[in-house]
């Protein structure tokens, strides 16, 4: 009998908590899909770096389990409150509390199991899409595979059981504590309003805003500090900024509604305009009773934006890095000179040996061996300090013929220089400062010859051209004479075949690098070696693994966060629509048309859904400015990051809107019966 009742109740709950069940099912589908992927051999064998992917996903899954657990716990508590009267009635009829608990738990287990079973199917389909996506990143063909081990299923079930064990235990304890009176009248004590004076709330609001501003400024400083390489106080800055931003998020979310209400209620024209009075009061009362939850939702939305933004930033960063650090299939840095007076190799082996080995494995299509020079004085390096990345503290020169050959090997058009001209190619990072400097000093004096600046570009700069320098100076071949010193001899090779990570590892093993010893002032010795080869295949494989790992982890988190936020808002609003039906029926009796009531509901829901979203959007936009300071050099353009941020806000709003519409139509349905 009891199980029959539980099944019946579960059926009813499916209707009432549809959106919640959909979210839980989707979340478990994602968890399962990721479990399938991280245990899939095809994926793990893509690159040696994919092992990181596995561990990262497990970490993220753990966070997801906590967040989804929070959602389930929240909803369960919510259901319990909603139905306390029903349970009270069962008790009045003489059913024991123990049995009621059993029934409630059984009902939830039924619902949970349904989601789990559905999510196994859905997760499998999702995993196929994700595999396709990853294969696409690695530019490999994709085939559907239906075989998977038992591990992913077990892991998913473990997550599921972990969540339900704790949640059900808590629900059980909660019911145990409740007395019959509490159950019958629980709905009435549901609202614990925060009775604080208007003044306190206004002050809290302004303090929170101030804290937010301080937090963002600290964050900006931290980003600037990282650039200056003085890393010690940076962590402190970041920590402080995070703390103040979190406090600010809660503070503003809790008090913003009151602030708006006070503002509107003081102004007759706003107060008595249309349905403002009703909406504003409804809004404040709702926010006051659900403030903390809304604060948490705002925090989750902020995290969503951060995840989405980082996902894009890293994605772009590694793509750019591919281009920048490995523009040619193989590069051999065969010469290195520390003292600049003697030329020494950084490997025990000669260039010929490298070439021989490469030829054994690949067909060389094109190659060039060129030198990077330096001269005394270093007029540019001396005057540029901002944003220079690299260990070379000298001006690096390249011969025009070498530079053009290098461009040609990258399928870029060569440049032309007159005899008295020079040209600068720089990293995006330094180009601004260089431009400012060169505007005032367009002449370059080299050994009694004066060269004029032809142009400066930062288009597709490659750090591999001259290692350790953020810019190169291209001069006519003639200019380079015996006064110049060689600091690097580099060979760039394009092969017919695609290079691989395996080849790189083999080469590394075969050609051991020289170990240099450096003694510091306090007598410590540091040992280091300098990389003598770059292989495109290896760099790409690493970067692609990183792209996959980071973008997938962050996307995974973001989706779960949005879904959880949307669900909680939806459940909250929909339960209000039944609990506070009478409010709309009063409006109706006072002569408000049905269509107008729906408009009011729409406004109310838009306000309620926007509250936890507005502040995170502001934070996201402002912090993008700071992030731009740090990451701009690695982006395609100055506006890349702000572009991502805006794109992500739209992406978020689209998913959020789905939840909003679901809530709105549900709300309308619930109210419709009450009005005429």
């Amino acid at each position, binding site marked *: 009998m009891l199980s029959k009742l539980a099944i019946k109740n579960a059926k009813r709950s499916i209707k009432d908590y549809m959106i919640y069940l959909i979210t839980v099912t989707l979340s478990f589908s994602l968890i399962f899909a990721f479990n399938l992927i991280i245990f899939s051999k095809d994926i793990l064998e893509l690159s040696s770096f994919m092992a990181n992917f596995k561990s990262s996903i497990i970490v993220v899954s753990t966070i997801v389990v906590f967040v989804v657990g929070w959602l389930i716990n929240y909803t369960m508590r919510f259901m319990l409150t909603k139905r306390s009267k029903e349970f009270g009635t069962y008790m009045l009829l003489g059913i024991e509390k123990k049995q009621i608990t059993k029934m409630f738990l059984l009902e939830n287990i039924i619902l949970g199991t349904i989601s789990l079973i559905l999510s196994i199917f859905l997760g499998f389909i999702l995993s196929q899409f994700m595999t396709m996506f990853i294969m696409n990143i690695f530019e490999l063909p994709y085939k559907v595979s239906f075989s998977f081990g038992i591990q992913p299923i077990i892991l998913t079930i473990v997550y599921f059981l972990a969540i339900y064990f704790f949640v059900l235990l808590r629900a059980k304890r909660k019911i145990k504590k409740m007395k019959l009176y509490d159950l019958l009248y629980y709905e009435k004590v549901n609202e614990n309003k925060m009775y604080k004076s208007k003044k306190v709330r206004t002050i809290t609001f302004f303090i929170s805003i101030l804290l937010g501003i301080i937090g963002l400024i600290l964050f900006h400083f931290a980003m600037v500090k990282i650039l200056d390489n003085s890393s010690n106080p940076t962590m402190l800055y970041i920590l402080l900024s995070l703390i103040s931003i979190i406090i600010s998020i809660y503070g503003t979310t809790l008090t913003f509604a009151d602030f708006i209400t006070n503002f509107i209620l003081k102004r*007759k024209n706003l107060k008595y305009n249309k349905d403002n*009075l009703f909406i504003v009061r409804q809004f404040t009362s709702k926010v006051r009773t659900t403030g903390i939850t809304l604060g948490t939702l705002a925090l989750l939305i902020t995290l969503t934006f951060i995840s989405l933004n980082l996902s894009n930033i890293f994605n772009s960063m590694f793509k750019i890095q591919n281009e920048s650090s490995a523009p040619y299939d193989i590069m051999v840095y065969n010469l290195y000179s520390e003292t600049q007076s003697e030329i020494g190799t950084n490997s025990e082996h000669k260039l010929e040996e490298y070439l021989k080995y490469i030829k054994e494995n690949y067909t060389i299509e094109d190659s060039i061996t060129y030198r990077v020079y330096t001269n005394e004085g270093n007029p540019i390096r001396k005057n540029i300090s901002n944003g220079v990345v690299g260990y070379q503290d000298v001006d690096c020169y390249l011969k025009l013929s070498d530079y053009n050959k290098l461009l040609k090997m990258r399928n870029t058009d060569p440049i032309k220089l007159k005899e008295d001209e020079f040209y600068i190619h720089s990293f995006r990072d330094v180009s601004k400062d260089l431009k400012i400097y060169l505007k005032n000093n367009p002449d370059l004096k080299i050994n009694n010859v004066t060269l004029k600046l032809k142009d400066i570009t930062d288009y597709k700069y490659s750090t591999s051209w001259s290692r350790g320098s953020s810019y190169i100076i291209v001069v006519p071949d003639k200019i380079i004479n015996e006064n110049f010193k060689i600091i690097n001899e580099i060979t760039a090779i394009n092969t017919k075949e695609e290079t691989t990570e395996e080849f790189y590892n083999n080469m590394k093993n075969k050609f051991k690098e020289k170990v240099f010893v450096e003694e510091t002032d306090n007598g410590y010795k540091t040992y280091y070696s300098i990389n003598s080869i770059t292989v495109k295949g290896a760099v790409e494989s690493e970067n692609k693994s990183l792209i996959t790992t980071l973008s997938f982890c962050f996307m995974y988190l973001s989706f779960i966060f949005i879904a959880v936020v949307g669900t909680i808002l939806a459940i909250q609003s929909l339960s209000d629509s039944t609990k506070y039906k009478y409010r709309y029926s009063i409006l109706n009796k*006072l002569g408000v048309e049905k269509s107008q009531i729906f408009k009011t509901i729409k406004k109310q829901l838009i306000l309620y859904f926007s509250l936890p979203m507005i502040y995170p959007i502001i934070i996201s936009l402002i912090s993008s400015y700071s992030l731009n300071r740090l990451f701009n050099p690695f982006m395609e353009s100055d506006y890349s990051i702000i572009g991502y941020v805006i794109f992500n806000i739209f992406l978020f709003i689209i998913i959020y809107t789905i939840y909003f519409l679901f809530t709105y139509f549900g709300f309308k349905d619930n109210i419709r019966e009450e009005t005429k």
Partner: protein
Amino acid sequence: MKEILKINNLQKYYGNKSNITKAINGLSFNVIEGEFVAIMGASGSGKTTLLNCISTIDNVTSGNIYIDNIDITDLKEKDVAKFRRENLGFIFQDFNLLDTLTISENIALTLTINKDDKNEIDKKVYNISKKLDIDDISNKFPYEVSGGQKQRCACARALINNPKLILADEPTGALDSKSAKMLLETMRDINDKLNATILMVTHDAFSASFCDRILFLKDGRIFNEILKGDKSRKSFFNEILDVLTVLGGDVQSVK
């Protein structure tokens, strides 16, 4: 005398073909301007149905209801709400105040729905609150004031529009006897001083004794009608009790 409400052979049936409940079965009466009329009857006599029909919340089966010469049974769906807010005022048993709004805001809400001049609203609300003696609690929320005060707030809300007809559904139902008496005196006052027309549904003889005229309903028809005239309230009250005794059933029906 102007007829505010005119009901002409009103019928309201519920149910389907095989099982019809005649909630109102051919009812006709008039209410003239400035009258305070009570409708009494036992549960199931059709008094709430009647009120719902007059207040345009429910449709009629046949017959006409004229409010200030407008046949509300002919009103189109979209005009109903407008008609209601412009012509009718409501006082309900459970106050029906919005708990999220303060007392004065509850009163003002009706005016904002009617799109009144925004600068006039505060003044109007203050005036009516003063008359009903709730001006000192105007900034409190409904849960902070007593039942009687809530009901007076509801009165104020019903009155502020100067409606042609105020409909009251068991207004004292949720009040203690002292608050109930105060409310009824307030309503009497409204009727006397502001010349408001009030139609009140009640099953309580004490409440009804404050009215000018009482209609007794039984099985959806008018069973009896008594006028206060120049009688004292006490003798009117006794007269009501007499009718109620008869209304309860004839001696013959007890066997």
